[in-house]
């Protein structure tokens, strides 16, 4: 599967997908950390993709999302925004409302990571 298709699959299939630098345990950038903290604070399940292993991940992701910077947060396939918007929506309570609406209030707060790697067709 191409990198593009794998990234699209994560966005489509995961309840909350976040593309970050580093991992949820060890974010390698302050903005990735800010977005993760906002998601955790809002009780979101988190599926994280580290974009650092391959520069092409970011290129493909930005082509899909029309969003140039990292992190990027998606809820049920919809781009919520980067660190600033995610923080802002968390501060206003809107993020939690959005998650309640999209995933239900009794959602499990699981954290997982997915690696995207281009494979031969």
């Amino acid at each position, binding site marked *: 599967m191409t990198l593009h298709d794998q990234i699209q699959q994560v966005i489509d299939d995961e309840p909350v997908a976040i593309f970050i630098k580093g991992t949820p345990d060890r974010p390698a950038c*302050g903005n990735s950390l800010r977005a993760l903290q906002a998601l955790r604070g809002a009780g979101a399940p988190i599926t994280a993709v580290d974009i650092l292993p391959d520069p092409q991940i970011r290129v493909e992701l930005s082509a899909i999302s029309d*969003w140039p*910077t990292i992190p990027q947060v998606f809820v049920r396939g919809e781009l919520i925004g980067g660190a600033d918007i995610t923080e*802002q929506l968390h501060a206003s309570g809107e993020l939690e409302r959005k998650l309640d609406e999209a995933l239900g209030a009794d959602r499990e707060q699981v954290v997982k990571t997915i690696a995207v790697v281009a494979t031969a067709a």
Partner: protein
Amino acid sequence: MSMAADAIRSLLEQAFPGGTVDVLDRTGGGDHFQVIVESPAFEGVSLVEQHRMVNRALAAPLADGTIHELRIQTKGLPA
């Protein structure tokens, strides 16, 4: 104000006439910026799209590494 901050301000003022633009050099290093843009162009536009508009206005300095990190704050103004 660094040269980069001036350039960013001028790009934003061109892209969002009739509003207000603030550019802060967050670290003093000349490549971590916070921009605050208030514009009539944001009225009725989703937050994601507002940020996209700012990112588009700054596509060149984002692509060439002039901006290493960008924080964006936007607000609509009545037209």
